């Protein structure tokens, strides 16, 4: 009696991960903080100050100043807001490409074949090489970075969505709905969309940290955001010379800021991906 009672009263599978809403609040709050901070930042704080060149972190400059006397903390905030904007735009575009191709693949065998080959082609090429090529071809700059990141980050998500869409389209429950008189459009709206939506959201959130990291990478090698704009990649590239001069703090703030933002979204996306599994753990 006790064994059965214990079993039936058990709490079920313990959740190992934190709730996605909590992690989403952290990631979203971080972005809001960055955007609001950058918007409210007095422009004078970004100016050069020849009286404060290479100052280590202290009460007046919490993250120090660089060799031109610019406040690193203020510049990091402005750079992160540029990175977040670029990353967000590129991630949205990339997710849209993945969704369009994933849906196209479920239309028919020919379309599926084309999408499959295209996906494997992009997946097969080294990520960063392709990024550099696209950024170079589009002439670099902010637009170049957005295009390059958008064109290189869709394949994994497209593959996942293609698999999901085909699974739903071939399912018994779609066949039953069709036999009960439901149109294709209705099936897409009521069966397909609810299955794909969590995957699309999780995919987008997971693309975002990659997008900002690669934006920084491209800017670091000089193919990304224009050097006069504050961006994390440009800041890190310029800090190389400063580190040699012993000014380690110039690299610390932008590096740390980038890692924190990327990590917050990575953890949010991971929690979403786990929660995207259908209720009851089936399907």
């Amino acid at each position: 009696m006790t064994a059965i009672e214990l079993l039936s009263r058990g709490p079920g599978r313990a959740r190992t991960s934190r709730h996605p809403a909590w992690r989403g609040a952290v990631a979203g709050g971080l972005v809001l903080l960055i955007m609001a901070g950058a918007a409210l930042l007095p422009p004078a704080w970004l100016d050069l100050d020849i009286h404060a060149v290479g100052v280590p972190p202290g009460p007046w400059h919490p993250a120090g100043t660089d060799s031109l006397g610019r406040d690193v903390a203020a510049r990091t905030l402005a750079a992160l807001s540029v990175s977040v904007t670029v990353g967000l735009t590129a991630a949205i575009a990339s997710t849209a490409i993945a969704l369009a191709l994933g849906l196209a693949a479920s239309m028919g065998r020919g379309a599926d074949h084309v999408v499959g080959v295209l996906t494997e082609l992009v997946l097969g090429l080294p990520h960063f090489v392709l990024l550099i090529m696209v950024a170079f071809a589009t002439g670099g700059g902010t637009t170049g970075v957005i295009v390059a990141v958008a064109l290189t980050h869709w394949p994994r998500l497209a593959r996942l969505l293609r698999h999901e869409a085909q699974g739903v389209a071939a399912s018994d429950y779609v066949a039953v709905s069709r036999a009960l008189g439901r149109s294709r459009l209705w099936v897409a709206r009521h069966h397909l969309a609810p299955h794909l939506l969590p995957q699309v959201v999780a995919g987008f959130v997971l693309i975002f940290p990659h997008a900002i990291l690669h934006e920084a990478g491209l800017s670091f090698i000089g193919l990304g955001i224009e050097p006069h704009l504050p961006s994390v990649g440009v800041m890190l590239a310029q800090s190389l010379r400063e580190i040699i001069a012993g000014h380690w703090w110039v690299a610390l703030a932008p590096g740390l800021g980038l890692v924190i933002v990327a990590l917050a979204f990575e953890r949010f996306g991971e929690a979403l991906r786990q929660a995207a599994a259908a209720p009851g753990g089936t399907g």
Partner: protein
Amino acid sequence: MLTARGLRHAYDTRTVLDGIDLALAPGEVLGLGGPSGSGKSTLGQLLAGRMTPQAGRVRLDGAALPAPAPGRPAPVQYAPQTAELAVDPRWSVARILSNGGPPDGAALSALGIQPGWHDRRPSELSGGELARVSLARLIHPGLRALICDEITAQLDALEQAALLDRLTGLARRRGIGLLLISHSAGLRARYCTRSLTLVARGG
């Protein structure tokens, strides 16, 4: 009266059905047996209009099967084997039941569907309960014949008896022709007025 004449179907080069004739009268419970791979499910899907035969034709009262349209569910429905795969795991039971139109109260009570299940998800029902829900949504006012493809294969003997007693009773009262596809000769002998057996074809 659902009739099939000279049905033929092949998967690539493998012919599974050839020259099949069949008639299912309203309110009749007809059994269909045969070894695995003999084409029972294929025949069921042809009869329900889910697939088109490569030769021969399926008629309902002498006319071709009407294509389902919004508000007009197919008059011949096919109930697949595994109820768990035949319902959308994200839908509530109430939504599943009203998929083909407003749920039929008499059919729901005949199949023993409790109002308390309505807010639950498919994963929160037992196998037998879900099998009944999966069947109940197919029963609509225009239903003439129901093809049940091994619907009780995953249920224990008690669940099986409970489901089939309720279903055959409902079909006889409503004049719905019932085709029970089953491996079990005992089950067919118990519930069906007559029974057909497909033989496996070589190759």
